[in-house]
């Protein structure tokens, strides 16, 4: 008899998916869960977020590449899509590495995991509050940025990077702080 797969609307996860992430049995990704690999993923994720945000400053950062404008647009677009896809992939691996604890509902976690998840959100909130302040300062005092405009410095990459940071911040803290047991 097929068991019902409950969907948690608040967390946006399914019961079966979360249970599969929480266990180490039959997991293809057990190797990801060592502290060394988790911390490596934290560095890759942070690097990805920084690279995506730099997309907003491409016209400022570019040097004499000696290529046509059309080629430049293609090179930039392909690079941007590649970096965003890479960051998205790294974020997916990060979720697996921390067993999806950051997005799991209370009833599927034990009391220590709930405590770890809650404290990671507390740290993430403080970190993001400061990061958003930096983003605001960049918008106001940095090079001119425009949102959703075909020309000029496209600030939407900064917005995408901020969204990545928001989504991954709790998992980043869990990945860094949890120990190998």
């Amino acid at each position, binding site marked *: 008899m097929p068991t019902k797969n409950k969907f948690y609307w608040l967390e946006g996860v399914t019961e079966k998916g979360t249970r599969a992430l*929480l266990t*180490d049995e039959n997991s293809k990704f057990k190797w990801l869960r060592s502290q060394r690999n988790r911390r490596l993923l934290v560095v890759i994720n942070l690097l990805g977020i920084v690279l995506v945000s730099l997309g907003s400053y491409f016209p400022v950062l570019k040097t004499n590449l000696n290529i046509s404008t059309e080629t430049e647009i293609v090179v930039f677009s392909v690079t941007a899509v590649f970096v965003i896809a890479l960051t998205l992939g790294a974020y997916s691996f990060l979720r697996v590495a921390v067993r999806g604890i950051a997005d799991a509902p209370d009833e599927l976690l*034990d*009391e*220590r*995991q709930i*405590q*770890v998840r809650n*404290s990671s959100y507390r740290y993430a909130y403080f970190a993001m509050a400061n990061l958003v302040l930096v983003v605001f300062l960049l918008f106001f005092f940095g090079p001119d940025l425009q949102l959703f405009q075909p020309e000029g410095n496209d600030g939407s990459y900064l917005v995408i990077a901020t969204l990545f940071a928001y989504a991954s911040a709790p998992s980043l803290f869990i990945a860094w702080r949890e*120990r190998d*047991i």
Partner: protein
Amino acid sequence: MSRNPEDPVFNQIEATRTSLGLSRQELADRVGVHYQTIGYLERGEYSPSLVLALRIAQALNKEVSELFSLTERKKGKK
């Protein structure tokens, strides 16, 4: 990750568990927590709630006071 790092709670979980021939996973299954949580408890890096302490004591056939203490017990002394 202790509730209050200044007041660690010492325990005899590992010694009792191994004397009963249980793995961390088996004890975790009995008390309904992740096996990592048992590891954190044994290393004194996490202090359990009262209900978890009671469940662990029940699973190991011990009294809570035999498993947990506010002062460190010498090895071999139960």
